[in-house]
């Protein structure tokens, strides 16, 4: 990121050619290193030590060859790019990403740890995505970039899985270790899956059938990018990986079949499709595909000399294809078109480019003059030595022929012949765009003439992937017969293709079915299917209707809980005695059941509220007759306040209740019954489990001696488990704070704020004080007898509510002195201060402390009291105030 800023900083005055010093210095360093230190170079440093993943690098001759290609061609591409992009806005981004890409490539071809390798591998995919989409204003570029990303990343995921499997089988993360340990896991049943997964990764990266389609589309990238990534380096990464792993799996039929099959299909298919293109760059892209296919095929051949062929071809292809791309770029740059129909006779205006094209074209066509011949020659030998399937051989003849024809198109057709009028007066491209292709093309030719330096490197590179490689004696293998068999026939076909190019093209272009056929169409189908599936899925699950959400959630919960029942042991208790007080329980239970059943049938909201209230009051009675007076009182007061608040809220529901008959909806009814039955089972099972009274008896025996309280429930609330209570009053207070903005949204139809009679008003104030006193009394006695902060607070709420109802809320507020929400917060604060007391004495937060006979728990309970009082009066006042507002203009009908 900082780099990017730095590059951006110099602005347009910055000469981007200087950036080529980065790859160039790396290149020089490599050469120097190569002379000074013998290969292989190794370096390792723990990365994630607990997983044994290391930053392990290993440079052998093969890696060295790749490194020289990456940095050498990189230098040329950077020089070229500085000219090609000189007027492109945002070019700093391209260079920035290109540098990252180069680093990633360097990392990928030197990494020995598979995870490290994968890291760099993915990085090349991402940088490629960013570069392909450089012209992001065009939707074609965006789509191509995304296609390249999806295909290569999907491959990356497969590769990761494959590599993980491989390293699991081999017991090492090291790439060379995996190859070395190959014999030990040849019988592992996971091997075939691992191979398929790894090959999917390699095939996507190197654009092999059926994943080849992204590469021609990726040509929407700027030319320097195409030359560098999509012909010379990145697409070779898959080849690199396959060649690396080849020594391990060379003998495997699966490996052989997949490589030869995919390679051959890619090579032939791409060669045919190359004839369909009119765009020079796309023609080159197709022929790159074809070359990649040939490479894959060669790796798959079970022959020792294939290794050298692979290496030689890899090198040659990089050295001739990059300049050809640059030539295409120059033509585009100068003439503004890449369509070969218009391009003729350009040698007159672009002589240097023409020279580069011819040199590179010669190399590509595999004629004896250039280095390309050497490579092809070696290949021819390699092919003879292995039992090559005949058809593949013929196919390769065609491939060679098309390659030559393409070379001829790029080198001859566009440069010779009459110059089109509109091109007269054009000028040769910038020198920065001419030198690089010329240099690279010359290198290609040079090395044929002086192969002394490169041959040993090629040989040792070949030996590092196929140890038994030997240098085929180039000079002796150059025989007349060989020339004919390997290149001669191809050349004849090529000449025919070149001459008949337009006619063949027209014929092929008319075959429209080719467009809707093959993997690219499948890619589109996958995308469309994905969108459709996503749409159906999401509209079903996320329908937007709350009732459906609840239905879905409840159904799922019930289904899942029955799964739990199925798996867990369930027992039923024996009921052998009924407690004496069961009549009280019967009454309470009866009330609740009536409330529960009736509630389902009621449509009127007030009536429904009453029915629900009945359930609450019933449970209060239950509590009372189950030795829980605190609960009973709390439930009574809560229920009362709830009815007050709910009754005040109900008028705000202005519309008649949505009428429905739930008992006529069998699904809902079924769910309800199942939920009830589930609860029944759960609770019956609970009764069968013997009670563990550890906690109960500890609280029973420690309440008085340790915490000075006789009401054990209250002691638990304010002392033993005071933290729960602190959280609880926080919920209470914050619920009011949360509800505050909501009050502004509600308004009633009619004002309910009818003041009571004078007599009642006169009574209200004294009543208020009386009730408040009672509330305080309940609070104070709480520690030893039933009562406490909650109940006291709720009684105080009732006191304030009656005042607010009988007078009005503003009047009631005055008697409370502090805003309800602040009172509530103050209450929490007070409870926390009470807790702090224990902190000060060193006993710990929320431990009771007695000072002069007064316990800090009293302060705590007072806090509870204030919070409850403040919060719920806040609700009551705010609601009443909404009623007291002047009538708003609402024309809806009243509630039923």
């Amino acid at each position, binding site marked *: *990121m900082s780099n990017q800023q730095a590059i951006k900083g110099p602005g347009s005055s910055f000469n981007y050619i200087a950036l080529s010093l980065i790859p160039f210095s790396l290149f020089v360093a490599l050469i120097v290193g190569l002379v000074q230190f013998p290969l292989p170079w190794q370096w390792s440093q723990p*990365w*994630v030590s*607990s997983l044994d993943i290391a930053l392990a690098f290993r440079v052998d001759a093969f890696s060295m060859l790749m490194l020289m290609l990456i940095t050498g061609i990189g230098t040329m591409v950077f020089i070229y790019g500085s000219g090609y992009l000189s007027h492109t806005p*945002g070019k700093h*981004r391209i260079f920035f990403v290109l540098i990252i890409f180069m680093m990633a490539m360097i990392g990928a071809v030197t990494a020995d740890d598979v*995870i490290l390798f*994968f*890291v760099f591998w*993915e990085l090349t995919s*991402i940088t490629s995505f960013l570069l392909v*989409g450089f012209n992001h204003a065009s939707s074609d570029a*965006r789509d191509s970039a995304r296609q390249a990303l999806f295909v290569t990343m999907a491959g990356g*995921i497969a590769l*990761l899985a494959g590599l993980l*499997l491989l390293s699991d089988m081999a017991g090492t993360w090291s790439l060379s270790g995996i190859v070395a340990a190959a014999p030990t896991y040849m019988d592992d049943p996971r091997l075939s899956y691992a191979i398929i997964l790894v090959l999917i990764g390699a095939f996507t990266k190197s654009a092999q059938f059926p994943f080849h389609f992204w590469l021609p589309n990726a040509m929407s990238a700027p030319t320097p990018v195409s030359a560098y990534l999509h012909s010379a380096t990145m697409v070779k990464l898959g080849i690199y990986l396959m060649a690396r792993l080849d020594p391990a799996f060379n003998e495997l039929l699966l490996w052989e079949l997949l490589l030869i099959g995919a390679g051959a299909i890619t090579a032939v298919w791409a060669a045919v499709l190359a004839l369909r293109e009119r765009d020079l760059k796309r023609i080159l892209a197709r022929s790159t595909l074809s070359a990649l296919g040939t490479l894959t095929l060669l790796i798959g051949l079970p022959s020792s000399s294939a290794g050298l062929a692979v290496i030689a071809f890899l090198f040659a292809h990089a050295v001739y294809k990059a300049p050809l791309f640059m030539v295409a770029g120059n033509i585009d740059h100068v003439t503004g078109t890449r369509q070969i129909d218009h391009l003729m006779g350009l040698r007159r205006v672009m002589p240097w480019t023409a020279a580069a094209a011819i040199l590179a074209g010669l190399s590509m066509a595999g004629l004896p003059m250039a280095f390309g011949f050497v490579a092809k020659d070696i290949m021819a030998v390699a092919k003879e030595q292995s039992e090559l399937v005949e058809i593949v051989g013929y196919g390769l003849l065609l491939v060679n022929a098309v390659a030559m024809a393409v070379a001829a198109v790029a080198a001859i057709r566009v440069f010779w012949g009459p110059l089109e009028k509109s091109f007269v007066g054009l000028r040769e491209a910038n020198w920065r765009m001419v030198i690089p292709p010329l240099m690279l093309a010359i290198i290609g030719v040079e090395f044929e003439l002086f192969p002394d330096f490169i041959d040993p490197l090629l040989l040792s590179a070949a030996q590092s992937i196929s140890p038994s490689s030997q240098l085929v004696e180039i000079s002796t293998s150059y025989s007349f017969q060989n020339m004919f068999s390997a290149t001669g026939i191809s050349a004849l076909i090529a000449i025919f293709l070149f001459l008949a190019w337009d006619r063949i093209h027209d014929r092929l272009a008319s075959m429209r079915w080719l467009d809707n056929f093959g993997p690219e169409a499948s890619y589109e189908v996958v995308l469309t299917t*994905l969108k459709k599936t996503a749409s159906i*899925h*999401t509209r079903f699950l*996320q329908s937007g209707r*709350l009732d459906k*959400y609840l239905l*879905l*959630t*409840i159904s799922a*919960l019930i289904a*899942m*809980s029955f799964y*739990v029942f199925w*798996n*867990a042991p369930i027992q039923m208790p024996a009921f052998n005695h009924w407690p004496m007080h069961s009549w009280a329980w019967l009454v309470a239970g009866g009330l609740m059941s009536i409330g529960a059943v009736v509630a389902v049938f009621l449509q009127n909201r007030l009536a429904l509220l009453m029915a629900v209230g009945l359930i609450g009051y019933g449970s209060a009675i239950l509590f009372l007759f189950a030795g829980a007076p605190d609960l009973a009182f709390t439930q009574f007061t809560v229920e009362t306040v709830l009815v007050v608040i709910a009754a005040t809220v109900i008028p705000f529901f202005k519309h008649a209740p949505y009428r429905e008959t739930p008992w006529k909806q069998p699904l809902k009814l079924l769910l309800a019954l199942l939920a009830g039955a589930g609860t029944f089972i*759960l*609770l019956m*099972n609970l009764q069968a*489990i013997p*009670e*563990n009274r550890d*906690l109960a008896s*500890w609280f029973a025996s420690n309440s008085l001696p340790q915490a000075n309280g006789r009401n054990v429930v209250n002691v638990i609330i304010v002392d*033993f*488990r005071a933290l*729960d209570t602190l*959280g609880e009053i*926080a919920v209470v207070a*914050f619920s009011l*704070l*949360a509800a*505050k*903005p*909501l009050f502004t*949204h509600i308004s009633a139809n009619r004002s309910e704020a009818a003041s009571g009679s004078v007599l009642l008003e006169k009574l209200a104030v004294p009543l208020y004080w009386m009730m408040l006193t009672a509330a305080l009394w309940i609070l104070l006695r709480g520690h030893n007898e039933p009562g406490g902060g909650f109940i006291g607070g709720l009684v105080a709420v009732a006191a304030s509510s009656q005042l607010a109802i009988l007078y009005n809320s503003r009047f009631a507020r005055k008697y409370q002195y502090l805003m309800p*929400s*602040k009172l509530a*917060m103050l209450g929490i*604060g007070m409870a926390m201060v009470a807790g702090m007391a*224990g902190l000060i004495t060193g006993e*710990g*937060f*929320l*431990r009771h402390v007695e000072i002069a006979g007064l316990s800090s728990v009293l302060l705590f309970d007072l806090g509870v009291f204030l919070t409850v009082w403040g919060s719920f009066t806040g609700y009551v006042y705010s609601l009443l105030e909404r009623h007291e507002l002047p009538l708003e203009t609402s024309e809806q009908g009243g509630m039923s």
Partner: protein
Amino acid sequence: MSLLMPFLLPIATSLLSVFIKGRLLIGINLISSFTLLALALQLLFEVVSSGPKSLIFGNWPVPYGIEFYADGLSALLIILIALVSAVVMVFMVHWERTSDKSAYFALAQCLVASAIAVSLAADLFNLYVWFELMLIAVLGLMVLGKGRQQTEAALKYFAVSMLGTLIMLSAIGMIHGAVGHLNFSALAELAASEDTGHYLTLYGGMLLLALLLKIGAFPLFAWLPAAYHALPAPLLALVGGLLTKISVYVLMRISGQVLDYQLYHEAIGWLAVITMLSGVLGAAYHWDLRRILSFHIVSQVGFLLLGVALASPAGMTGTAFFLFHNILVKANLFLIAGLIWMTAGHYDLRKIGGLYPARPLLSVIFLLSALSLVGVPPTSGFWGKLLIIMETFTQEKYLWAAAALITSMLTLYSMSKIWLEGFWKPHPGQLVSLVIPKSTYMVMLIMSVLILMMGLMPGPLIDLLQLQQWQQGGAL
């Protein structure tokens, strides 16, 4: 003390916020947030140097009082809570100028306090209380927006979450009824014992259901995308980035250290697989940034559940790593969504564009976070993914691994959609180009650096998490 302060500080700040306003309010909240971060770091330091810490409120003997317990995992989680909340506070200072800031800060601090309490509580009922506080704080933040969408979202969120809360309460009540204890270590002992262990299978299973709802597992996630997107983006960073993850953390803690969930691991695993795929499909469908990111929460929850289902120390380490990575990345993405909204004027991808040329720094930050979400190396997400997938391979759950890998591919799909539509595509109209405060960029850069650091140097974090004692089968 080091366990108490990270909880007390935000709750005290929250209370105070109700009473103050203006610069004082903002100042105190910012100071409090950064102090919290420091306190959290100190807690981690103490935990690393002298082992897990325990605090019993009121200093009562252990199964009787309420315990707060912190090990490396919870300390790290608290650091992330503190970090995200600090970042969001900085963000919110500039975000909204008209609404009730006191209430906003009070509720946000309350959310932070309850989230920290949830991460620390080692007592089931106490856990329930904090979950409720968390719920009400989120609801409060949601309705602060005051729009119709906000209240509606709050209603949907409330109705479904409340159901989960009630199940949780019942389950806790029944667990207590069955074995008589609430404290985690006491429960762990009981769960491991022959006599009482099988009681917990049933009621622990019910608790699991409640947690799955809170987490947003398939098909219990309806509340999540329905509600989250109604929040303004920075708050989503706090809510969406943290809440479900904290629930996952609770599930990890309970299933890894308290109750015996062996019976359910297989089922959880398959549920996780469906959750992952369902989440990404939802994201693939939508065009609204917040909806896309909300659905991704679901899918990542699935990923986390998968880690939980693997139920081995290595799986838990991976899950924990993924959890931390995801909190950071998710928060960052939501903040980016906020900035996108400020810059491009919309959350809907069809109505925006052109951010790449206009906001290069934002683009880089987004790219990093998005790639991390997908799990592309060398970002933090890669390691989380790798750790979990390696463990699925070890356990030979190849289908689960395949689902996880497909999920990351589909995540790539929707992330590339955001990139293509929001960043690369030219803006169909005009960029709004509000002035984006530098401080917001700063905090996001810090987050991005953390994401990158986690990716480049995952070793220390993984080592720390491996020290964590994960013991299956109940015993602590």
